[in-house]
């Protein structure tokens, strides 16, 4: 990796100050994406701002009809959290399937959501559960947050602080893994919250997206059979050496069906 300056602030305000002053500074949370990029010299930040010293970014709490998860909360902590398991078991289950043990013990929800890797797990839960992204300066609705491949609504110098998940009546997640990387090849997170159905698809396209036809079908009838007949067009699906767009489009329907079955 190239040389960079290293900062370890203890407050969000201090972190934002450093990041705002230098557009080539990069925050690092669990480092599961940034560190490999640094090692391969694919990224050349002037400084790296380590968020691990900021206590206020850590932790899970139940707040009325919401579960609030701090940005620096690790996947392993979400997967094993009694609060999350009781309130949104599908979210705990999702977290338990991210990467491997090493990744889950380093990677954080804030890092994953901010990075918006098309093949990441969390963005589908954020979108399907209609979560709110709390940042260092504002609140952003999930529908406005994910803007494209590795692109979000976050401004330069703006830090993701927490994710607020409304507690759904039902939710389920299913995914097919890429055989090599074991990232998501196609995944579906389905949720019914306050009577509203949302279906978010990850892995299959350049950015997580809502599947409106499936939402309508599940609103009419919450059952795996309801989505089984919905054909996802292949036009905007990813295609690579691991799977064609046609295959991924097919998997979208299969995973949606399985997600509904898992949600019960």
């Amino acid at each position, binding site marked *: 990796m190239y040389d960079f300056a290293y900062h370890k602030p203890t407050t969000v305000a201090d972190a934002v100050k450093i990041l705002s002053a230098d557009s080539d500074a990069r925050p690092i949370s669990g480092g599961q994406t940034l560190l490999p990029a640094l090692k*391969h*010299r694919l990224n050349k930040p002037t400084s790296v701002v380590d968020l691990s010293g900021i206590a206020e970014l850590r932790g899970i709490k139940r707040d009325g009809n919401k579960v609030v998860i701090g940005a620096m909360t690790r996947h392993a902590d979400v997967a094993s959290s009694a609060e999350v398991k009781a309130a949104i078991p599908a979210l705990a289950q999702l977290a338990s399937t991210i990467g491997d043990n090493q990744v889950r013990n380093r990677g954080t929800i804030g890092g994953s959501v901010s990075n918006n890797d098309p093949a990441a797990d969390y963005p589908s839960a954020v979108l399907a559960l209609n979560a709110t992204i709390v940042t260092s300066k504002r609140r952003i609705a999930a529908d406005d947050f994910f803007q494209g491949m590795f692109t979000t609504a976050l401004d330069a110098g703006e830090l993701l602080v927490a994710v607020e998940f409304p507690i759904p009546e039902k939710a389920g997640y299913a995914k*097919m893994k890429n*055989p*090599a*990387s074991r*990232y998501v090849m196609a995944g579906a997170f389905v949720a019914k919250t306050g009577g509203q159905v949302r279906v978010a698809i990850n892995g299959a396209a350049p950015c997580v997206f809502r599947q409106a036809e499936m939402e309508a079908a599940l609103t009419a009838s919450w059952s795996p059979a309801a989505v089984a007949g919905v054909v996802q067009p292949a036009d905007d699906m990813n295609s690579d*050496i*691991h*799977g*064609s767009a*046609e*295959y991924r489009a*097919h*998997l979208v329907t*299969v995973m949606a069906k399985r997600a509904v079955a898992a949600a019960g």
Partner: protein
Amino acid sequence: MNAPVVFEGIGASPKRKEDLRFLSGRGNYTDDINRPDQTYAVMLRSPHAHAAIRGIDTAAAAAMPGVVAIYTGAEMVVGSLPCGWLIHNKDGSPMNEPGHPPLAQGKVRHVGDIVAVVIAETRPQARDAAEAIAVDYEVLGAATSMAAALAPGAPLLHEGAPGNVCYDWHIGDLAVNQAAFAQAKHVVHFELVNNRLIPNAMEPRAAIGDYDRTTDQHTLYTTSQNPHVIRLLMGAFVLQIPEHKLRVVAPDVGGGFGSKIFHYAEEAIVTWAAARINRPIKWTADRTESFMSDAHGRDHVTKAKLALAADGKFLGLHVSTTANMGAYLSTFATSVPTYLSATLLAGVYTTPTIYAEVKAVFTNTVPVDAYRGAGRPEATFLLERLVDIAAKQTGIDKLELRRRNFIPADAFPYQTPVALQYDSGDYQSTLAQALKTADWDGFEARRKAAAAQGKLRGIGISTYIEACGIAPSAVAGALGARAGLYEVGAIRVHPTGSVSVLTGTHSHGQGHETTLAQLVTDRFGIPLSQVDIVHGDTDRVPFGMGTYGSRSLAVGGSAMVKAMDKIVLKARRIAAHLMEASVDDVEFDRGTFRVAGTDKTKAWGEIALTAYVPHNYPIEEIEPGLDETAFYDPKNFTYPGGCHICEVEIDPDTGAIEVINFTAVDDVGRVINPMIVEGQVQGGIAQGIGQALLETCSYDADGQLLSGSFMDYTMPRADDVGTLSVATHETLCTHNPLGVKGCGEVGAIGSPPAVINAVVDALRDYGVTHVEMPATPAKLWHIINSGRQLAAE
């Protein structure tokens, strides 16, 4: 009080002696070695698959902090990296053998080809400077696939290889073969691709060049399976350094699988440059470099046809293969599709005539060479798929068809029509044992139960043979090998009776430090803790040809037996003197010398001590010391074989495939350490399942490596492999003193066709006769989906 004596000899499974250091992170790998005043090298590699180098500007890089030296092909003009096996064309002319300069000379021929070496005080400094080198490339058209390389007007890689052809070789009598096909009742046609693999040993390659100006002594520390071979190839052919001035050390090596047999450019570069700068130089590959510079494996495209009589007897086999050599000839690349593959096409069957032809092709890809199994997996995959397809086409049960064509157990030695003579085997027995273990007869019920759950279940079988311990030297030489294929064992009995074994084989995961020591324990009757195996250093071990082709025990172990024979003979003479008996009357059995029929004995330790403290000693007749060396040149290959059965389940909704269980019954000859054999076979099967279901090297049409990291190259993980049941059934090798055959490659050779036969069986309702490897979920779903569409139409 004496501790209870635990048997640690042949047939026991003591824990591996080497594991204390490996499992506690105390191994001594090449990158762990640091020499005083050491510098670091970074290789600047070509980003293009094919380009002319118009100029290299190193001025800015040379001025950067810490840079010691930068060399390009302009400075490093040395011998070519040699190819160790000369193949002749059908017309008797020698193959095209273009040179392989360690640093590119005016042209690069694959992504990863080395353009310059940067040497600096630290590795990051070297890397920074490498990025500052400006290379003026004129990008040329690339021929990535064999089809592209053989097409009219294809870009030409080497002036000396018109049409990008290395050789066009054949074996067998074509007229006899054609006559067999003329009489056939059935002819089965088949085409397949044997997918290209990237070895991915856990330890990346590394090399340290060191030079002592006062003695003109060069030392190379390297991640090699055969340090003496590297000394010979690099010393004699590339750098012209005589053996007594060149030491090659291959310390602990973290996996090879064939990829560390070969002499690589980086070894020559650091050795050459260390003498120029008069400082040690370390180079360690990162994983990205491993993907683009370790020799790849397999990559054959084959057309075959099998002639059968009405009763299913095989009458003849005809095979045409094109084999990818990559951009340059790696050390043993040329032998893999020819003498290590076509000669195995008889398999376990009595096919009377076989004709095989192989066209070897240059492409703008990483060189291809031996990888676990080396040619034998390709032959086995072809045969065992072909037999299954023939069974389907003739309507004869696939087990019955195999049984009808097996070489009978009483037909050995058996001369095949493709040069090899098998010494022993019992294919009906390994088949019967595997069928029973796998509960073959209960499969139909399991298939129905799976179908009730919406899953497609299939079972597949492979009955295979392979050839290990390539030999004898004279025969290999007549076929084009440019090296001997013997092995060396030197046994040093120390004055107190403990033993050091200097072996020319090399252990890089196989457990030689345990298995080879067990041979000594078994023979001399001393505890395993009293025996050390020394390997991997040309200054300590007299000579050797290294480890590949499952040869270490069959060839290296046999050399040790010969050396132990000499030691026992000498020790008996010493014992006879001490006991005042005739040497013919002195018996030796596991540590005790006894005058036959008496209670007069001498212990091992007494004789050893006497040999080194020769006070009461027949000094006029016997030299002091107990130290013997033997070279062993085998009379023949060894022929492990057996039966593999795989059961898979496919989810038709996603194409996801699961190996439910895998049964192997292998005849590896006499088993020295059953635990180590089981581990070797398990590892081989994991690699075979990897080839069949997961792994493939992908290049795009421009020669960029698409599967250039673990994000895109699917290595098998524990949960991909399923439950393995591994057993052995011994028939002894008849021509080596241990009766051993070798177990390192059987898993990787026997398993891929068993897996794919199971996949095709699972897809029996979808109209497929073959699925190319790897059978990925996406590929299987497309087959199932189009099968459904066919059914719907």
